[in-house]
């Protein structure tokens, strides 16, 4: 079946938005999360609504909005041009390669673009889209949303950062309002701009370590951080350790190789090592979780929600730009196997020879979801559960 030939034949009858959707659909046939079109997360190709929403266990809620749409903050998105966002998830499945969790995370972007939704035939007019919101008191209202001008910044836009009022990483020069501006921000979002951080919760004798990005930047040097953790072990004997990579969408897995291997040995006092993952845990974030699980042995417990990809994945490879539309596409060409650590010449990513581990799986031992009420009240059900263990 030649997907591209069929698309080529239909070009005269399809809108530009529809062709972008169909190219996205063709690339998604790979079934591999890293082989993808760069639309809104790793590229700024499509315009977006002046509100930002995020999936919680009880629905899609608005967490950020421009001043003009301040009344939408904290509301649930009930319908986009008459269609419930939950009902659109089956269409997202064909457009986002990867696990069901990754589809949920990536849909946060796709459902936020009037152009993409127009290409999907979900919205009639991409320049003005009626969206129905429901307030916390149960009152429903509909507003016509116009897309913001194309955000032409370079660099990835992480949807999860929208959860934090301190998310400077997603700043685009506008005065965004945030639903948590005057509220307590949960621990896991307090340093959303930091690639890594730690916190000792004395009452629970719990060491909380968070790695939001497998990279070193001005907020964090991963090698220094690993060294700091190793030094900390001399003066601290926590009973539990929480390693949070729920928002770690990747980077370079070598950056966290030392800490993922060292933590279980450095903190031998910790009876349990809780590894927190979620739909946004992806790529090097998964590799980091897999390595920590492997080196923690029987002490490891996976907490949260299924990760955005499996332990066997295609990754790496070139990104190319289509000559006229300038749409960017990535083709993954190197294989990783963090389930069995099998190395195959010509297929497996070379560095895996040194870093891959047979972690088995990342099956969630303690499933935890976050509701909008949890989020709004500054609670982290994950930490609540771990602390009560």
């Amino acid at each position, binding site marked *: 079946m030649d997907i591209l030939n069929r698309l080529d034949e239909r070009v*005269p009858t399809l809108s530009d938005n529809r062709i972008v959707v169909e190219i996205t659909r*063709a690339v998604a046939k790979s079934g591999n999360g890293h082989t993808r079109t760069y639309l809104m997360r790793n590229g700024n190709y499509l315009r977006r609504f002046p509100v930002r929403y995020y999936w919680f266990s009880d629905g899609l809620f608005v967490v950020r909005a421009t001043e003009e749409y301040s009344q939408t903050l904290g509301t649930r998105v009930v319908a986009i041009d008459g269609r419930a966002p939950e009902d659109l998830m089956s269409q997202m499945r064909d457009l986002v390669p990867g696990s069901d969790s990754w589809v949920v995370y990536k849909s946060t972007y796709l459902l936020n673009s009037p152009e993409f939704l127009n290409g999907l035939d979900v919205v009639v007019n991409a320049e003005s889209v009626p969206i129905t919101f429901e307030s916390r008191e149960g009152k429903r209202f509909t507003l016509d949303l116009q897309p913001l001008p194309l955000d032409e910044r370079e660099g990835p836009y992480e949807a999860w950062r929208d959860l934090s009022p301190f998310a400077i990483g997603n700043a685009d020069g506008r005065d965004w309002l945030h639903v948590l501006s005057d509220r307590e921000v949960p621990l896991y979002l307090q340093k959303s701009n930091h690639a890594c951080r730690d916190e000792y919760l004395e009452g629970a004798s719990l060491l909380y370590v968070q790695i939001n990005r497998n990279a070193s930047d001005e907020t964090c040097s991963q090698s220094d951080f690993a060294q700091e953790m190793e030094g900390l072990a001399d003066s601290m004997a926590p009973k539990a350790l929480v390693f949070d990579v729920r928002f770690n969408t990747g980077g370079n897995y070598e950056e966290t190789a030392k800490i993922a291997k060292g933590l279980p040995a450095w903190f031998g006092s910790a009876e349990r090592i809780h590894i927190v993952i979620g739909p946004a845990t992806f790529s090097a974030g998964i590799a980091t979780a897999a390595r920590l699980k492997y080196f923690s042995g029987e002490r490891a417990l996976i907490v949260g929600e299924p990760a955005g990809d499996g332990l066997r994945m295609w990754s790496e490879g070139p990104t*190319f730009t289509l000559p*006229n*539309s300038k749409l960017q596409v990535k*083709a*993954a060409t190197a294989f990783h196997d963090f389930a069995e650590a099998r190395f195959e*010449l010509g297929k497996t990513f070379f560095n895996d020879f040194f870093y891959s581990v047979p972690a088995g799986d990342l099956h969630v031992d303690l499933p935890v979801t976050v509701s909008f009420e949890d989020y709004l009240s500054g609670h982290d059900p994950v930490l609540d559960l771990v602390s009560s263990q």
Partner: protein
Amino acid sequence: MFKVYRQYPAAISGGRRPNKALEACNFRLVASVFTFMKKIVIRVVALGTVLLVLAIVGLILLTEQPEAPAPEYAVPQGRDEAWHQDIAHLRDEFLRVDRSFTEETSRNSWIF
């Protein structure tokens, strides 16, 4: 079986005086064995290093194949031709990064 006696203080050696001739003989024997072993170790390490470097270079060449130059396209005449070119480019690029393409085994075979 050879024993190598060293010049220990009388209290340790029990007052026994070592045989100087035997000592010299033993030292020569040990020294020659040591020198021989050292040469072997140096050669094994050198050979091992060369083999390791060759293996690493080989692995890199096998896993990261050099890419052919990107194809060039004429200036498109109109909107449809622009999209036709883009779709052709998409196909070409997937072929280019996966030169071992076959219908059954290619990691990118879904697109063809």
